[in-house]
């Protein structure tokens, strides 16, 4: 636990959830949370509970849909999957993040004055 974990920026969790569902298909809330933790290499400070605010928001916007189902161990769980408009939104948001991170990368690697 040497390094301080990354705080999530506003809206980033929504994007992560969409991406997770887009790649893995149907998944329950716990599964999504675990998947994000694993992919981030445990670098993100994620209280798993916060995922549910994100899920309900995405659902109410019509970007994901939800359905109760049973897990492989016969447990009842709510399963989420991305919708068509969710994919569109994901493409838009992902492109935005890509651009932003490119710009941030360029700005932060700006050479000090006189080096040019």
């Amino acid at each position, binding site marked *: 636990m040497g390094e301080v974990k990354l705080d999530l920026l506003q809206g980033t969790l929504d994007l992560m959830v969409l991406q997770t569902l887009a790649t893995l298909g149907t998944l329950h809330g716990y599964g999504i*949370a675990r998947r994000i933790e694993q992919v981030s290499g445990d670098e993100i400070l994620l209280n798993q*509970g916060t995922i*549910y605010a994100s899920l*309900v928001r995405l659902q109410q916007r019509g970007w994901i849909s939800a359905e109760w189902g049973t897990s492989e161990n016969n447990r009842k769980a709510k399963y989420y999957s991305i919708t068509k408009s969710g994919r569109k939104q994901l493409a838009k948001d992902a492109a935005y993040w890509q651009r932003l991170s490119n710009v941030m990368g360029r700005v932060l690697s700006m050479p000090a004055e006189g080096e040019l």
Partner: protein
Amino acid sequence: MGAMREGWNRMLSFFHKPERDAEMEAELASHVELAVEENMRQGMPEPEARRKALVRIGGVQQARERQREARGLPWLDVLLQDVRYTLRTLRRDRSFTVVAVLILALGIGANIAVFSVVNTILLRPLPFPDSQRLIRITAKDPKGGESSMTYTTDATQEYQQRNKSFQQVTGYFAFTGPDNYKLGGHGVPLPVTGILVMGNFFQTLEVQPMLGRLFTADECLPKGRPAVLLSYPFWKRQFHANRDIVGQAIDLNNTPVTVVGVLPKTFDFGSVFSPGSKVDIFTPFIMHDFQDDGNALALIGRLKPGVTLAAAQAEADLLFPKLVANLRHPGWNEHYTARQMLLKQYVTGKLHRSLIVLWCAVGMILLIVCVNLSNLLLARTAARSKEFAMRTALGAGRGRLIRQLLTESLILSGAGALLGLGIAFAVIEFLAHQGSIALPLLSDLRIDGATLAWTVAVAIVSGAAFGLMPGLKMSSGNLQETLKDSGSGAGEGKKHEELRSALVISEVALACVLLVGAGLLLRSFLHILDVDLGFEPSHAAAISVEYTDGGNAAKRSAIWQEIIHRVEAIPGVETAGITDNLPLSRNRSWDISAKGQTYRPGELQDTFVFIVSPGYLRAIGMRLLAGRDVSWSDGPKSQSVVIINETVARKLWPGQDPIGRIAMVGGGEARVIGVIADVHESSVEGDPGWQMYLPATQAEPEGAQLVVRTKVPPDVLASSVMATLRQINPGQPATEFRPIQGLVDHAVSPQRFFVLLVDIFAGLGLLLASLGIYGVISYSVTQRTQEIGIRMALGASRWNVQWSVIWKTLRLVLVGMVVGLAASFAASRLIATLLYGTAATDPKTFGAVTLLLLGVALLAGYLPAWRASRINPMIALRNN
């Protein structure tokens, strides 16, 4: 798209809270189970697996809250919570709630009522389409009443043809008295009031008939088919809203006249053109019939689109001086001028200042109400300070507390506004049916959208105003101090008391300004009532008399003599006389000059003419200063005579005795036989104009008003006078026997209206201010019970204690009064033009207000002082 969908879903979630919560609980539970399962698969024992799972999920409660916020309408949740809480606390504190809502209802109700008056008279356009293009054309410097504000038919027609500014120019006959027609056909003829209007009158105003049609061109020509339009109220009252009346003939002045249409309910001639009177019917003004008359028409025009008032005025300045008054009498020289003003301005312009003053007065009432409420709430929040400290300690933010207090004050002001709307509605209904108040457009008074919007605005602004201060005060308190504080014994802190004192001072200052304004207006009104009118209105009444003389003066003389003779024989009647025009009602003017004299233009003035019987002057109580009254022997064949008023005598024969001199009256010679004291002929507060009185045996009167001076109250004699008139002429319509005092009351009704309202508001302001003083002093006495107890135990006398409380009151009031008097001194200049015979700095008024305020303040302070002096030191000390 997404946002709309989200909003809709949020709303759905808001209304399906239990289901959504249950679903979330199930989901969280399944989350924990899935996590436990996975942890156990990794080899943890179950308790450890569960603990780990709960750690990873974070705060479950927080997760719930965040989910709820993301899915529902959190602000509405908080609002509902606040509202429920407020209603609960207000219900618990019932007496506070009732007092607060009542005070607010009075303040807001007064504001709504006055706003709707201001809105109706000043803000709303006149009830005609495109009314900002309607122009009233009058003379620039009218001195002779209606006659100098009107034009001849020839001048009107010439202006109609030559002007390029107006789409239409129209007019109506300006010399109509009430009850000038009689409606026959059903037993006793019924008096009705009709106005002659030019053929294009309604087209110019763009008024469409509700039933039937307007006048056709040939109905406005000489010997055209007689036609009449009915006003809506008359149609409803007299013809029971019978639609079939259109096309039928009714009997007007013994002639069958066809009803061609009924005007809409929204058209009220009286309320626009002659406030305080009602008009029943409209008949065509036939230009040809008035060719040989003088000025007859009051003109109104509708500007062409795009033409400005200034352009129309410039054109009129060129055209009017050249207009020929009468083509058949080229000698009539009228020196016409025209002042073009917006009809709206003409109708309501004079009221502008009064209404603004009224509006300010109720605005001040609202301020006082807010200050009072602030004070009440401060006292209340002081009592609740522990509750708030506790809530802060439990994590309520400052914003949340202020929000709660604001919700409370807005709910109070909302309830006050609702009740106030009810009060205002009653007041407005009452005012709208006061046909006798000579204020324009009053019948249009109603609660409309603008009024409702104003109500909402007033409620929100006042709620925020009186809620914010206690809110800020409360939430800024020191948490620890408050929680530690053991209660009533400990002092409340100087700051708190200072704030309350400042509120009382401002209340006193506001009440002082209101009282000074009201006092000045009241004194001015009393001056108006005190004016020597030149006649004696009490114990006199007038009735419109119908007779047929065929224009024959000798015949008229005989009829009038009989009427007067027989009416004077009625027991209780002192004397009687007849005139065609009464003072303070319809008027007209002719010219008078001294024979052989030449005058500069402008030296002579239009002179009011009254055509009277012998004895009229005595009957109405005018004072003959020199010479004699007219007599029946001043007949058609004897020398023409005239009685003039002092003003004419002074202007035409300065420093000489006018009796016996020859005057030129309307082109003929007449000998001056008498001089009477000036009479206020057109307004009570205005200066009397030039007046002359001609005998009805030598000049043609327009109608006849029988004036009866009585020894008993006039209305007692109404039926016997009517019976006598019926005996003489069975065709006498059932006209009203109107007290002369009624004319005066009608003339001063706008002033009475304003003074009454402003005085009511000032009284209300005084009451609220004294309540405020009482509240604060009484509260401070309660706070200091212990201190007073100690003082008394140490030997302070009752008198010492009383004096200390009263002195505290006096200090507050004196500061408030100094501020208030200074403000009044500045503000009274603004109402100076509304005052009559009273200086804006009238020392008597200022003195009286000072005494009144001091007296009331002493009373408000004395009650708590008395209570303080009754404190039993033993009990006060033991109590804590």
